[in-house]
């Protein structure tokens, strides 16, 4: 397990090393690409002043609430649509249409309807989280082996039990994948969400710093984004491993 983490840090560390070298020899303009050390400095300052914690906290709350609403409704609708061909015909085309609507373009409408407060931001995040979970749940359900469905029929499972005890566990690999993907999109949606009347949040911090050409702060923001995103992703990955330990699946060449 330790080996795993060591191997995993090789590339990021290498990247940072090259980056520091590039900065040291000023291959690229500093205003565009501050050195890792500058970024660490900016990071320390932001932490000292408490700005970063505050922004991160706000963003995490927004992301969490939005993600929860979006992914819960994604799973729910995915379940409904996955379990019924009629609902598929009725709802899925519209969902696919909405999936392709760019957030940035509908910001004004959201503000018009929901104002510029938290609701709009959370709607943006939630709608970012919704689609990956929805589509993965839907297709996960549609990949369930029909043989097992038959078993649930002869065992006289009620419809709801069929769904909770057969369809859901069988679709679980895909649902978890959807959750992982949607955590990513939810998190990234913050950037757009926090363009709207925000005065806090990591997304706001980035846009604001960009506005004032504070590239080091922009990079702190980007790195915070990447790291927090990666950490939450890892949680689900671990959950994935635990929930799916009943599977006997391929782990790569020579892995068994």
């Amino acid at each position, binding site marked *: 397990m330790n080996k795993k983490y060591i191997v995993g840090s090789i590339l990021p560390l290498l990247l940072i090393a090259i980056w520091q070298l590039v900065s040291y020899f000023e291959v690229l303009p500093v205003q565009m690409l501050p050195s890792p050390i500058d970024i660490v400095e900016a990071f320390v300052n932001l932490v000292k002043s408490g700005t970063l914690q505050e922004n991160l906290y706000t963003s995490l709350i927004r992301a969490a609430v939005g993600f929860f609403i979006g992914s819960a409704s994604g799973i729910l609708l995915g379940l409904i649509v996955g379990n019924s061909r009629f609902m598929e015909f009725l709802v899925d085309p519209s969902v696919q249409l909405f999936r392709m609507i760019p957030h940035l373009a509908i910001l004004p409408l959201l503000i018009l309807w929901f104002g510029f407060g938290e609701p709009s931001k959370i709607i943006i995040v939630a709608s970012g989280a919704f689609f990956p979970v929805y589509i993965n749940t839907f297709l996960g359900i549609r990949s369930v082996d029909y*043989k*097992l469905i*038959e*078993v*649930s*029929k*002869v*065992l*006289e*499972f009620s419809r709801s*039990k069929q769904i909770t*005890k*057969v369809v859901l*566990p*069988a679709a*679980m690999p895909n649902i978890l994948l959807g959750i992982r993907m949607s955590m990513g999109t939810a998190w990234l949606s913050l950037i757009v969400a926090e363009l709207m009347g925000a005065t806090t949040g990591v997304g706001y911090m980035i846009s604001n710093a960009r506005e004032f050409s504070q590239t080091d702060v922009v990079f702190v923001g980007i790195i915070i984004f990447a790291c927090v995103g990666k950490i939450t992703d890892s949680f689900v990955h671990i959950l994935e491993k635990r929930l799916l330990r*009943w*599977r*006997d699946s391929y782990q790569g060449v020579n892995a068994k």
Partner: protein
Amino acid sequence: MAILSIENVDKRFLKGKESLNVLTNINFTIEEQEIVSIIGPSGCGKSTLLRILAGLDQDYTGKINFDGKPISEPGKGKGVIFQEHRLFPWLTVEDNICANLNKRDEDVQQRLKEVIELVKLTGFEKSYPKELSGGMSQRVSIARALMRNPDILLLDEPFGALDAFTRKHMQDSLLDIFNNRKMTIILITHDVEEAVYLANRIIIMDSRPGTIKEIVSIPLQYPRNVVSDEFLSHRNKALTILDYT
């Protein structure tokens, strides 16, 4: 009284643009508390027929009455064992067996223990299907069907993956249960001896398309003596009809 009556059943599968005629002109009835065995060459349509009787396949022509009503869906009181084991891979052995029951119920727990002992899987309650041998999986699926205490049992080669010893044990257990519970059993098997050992009647099928060749009665008392002359003569009769000597 006939619990099941099958009239003129005909079943086709689409195969590309053609259709494959799998069952034609199937007619028989099954009485309550009878053990009927279905035997016939591989691919003749036994499993297909069983699936129809179980209510899993409604795409056939002809008439089937179960307890006086047409079969519309996998109904109450039926226990089915599929040819493949079809365990839920995410459930342990005991959870598979109790799939639709409340495991915390004391009564269920008691029965669970009995059934697990019956199929000789004590010690493997917490194993996942991927950790079982072929025969063990099959026994789990038997246990799952028995656990429901069904009125009618539809078994598709339930003992195919078992060694002779375990198989005999399971056959005798099945007869025990049959005697205690007075259920109706339809049993697909490849083993003529097994059919003669267990069944009141044997439906012998022929293939391409699947038809009923003959229905043989085995009017012997239980328990049957596999080396008795009567047993052997019935066995040989079945073998002759099957064209296999």
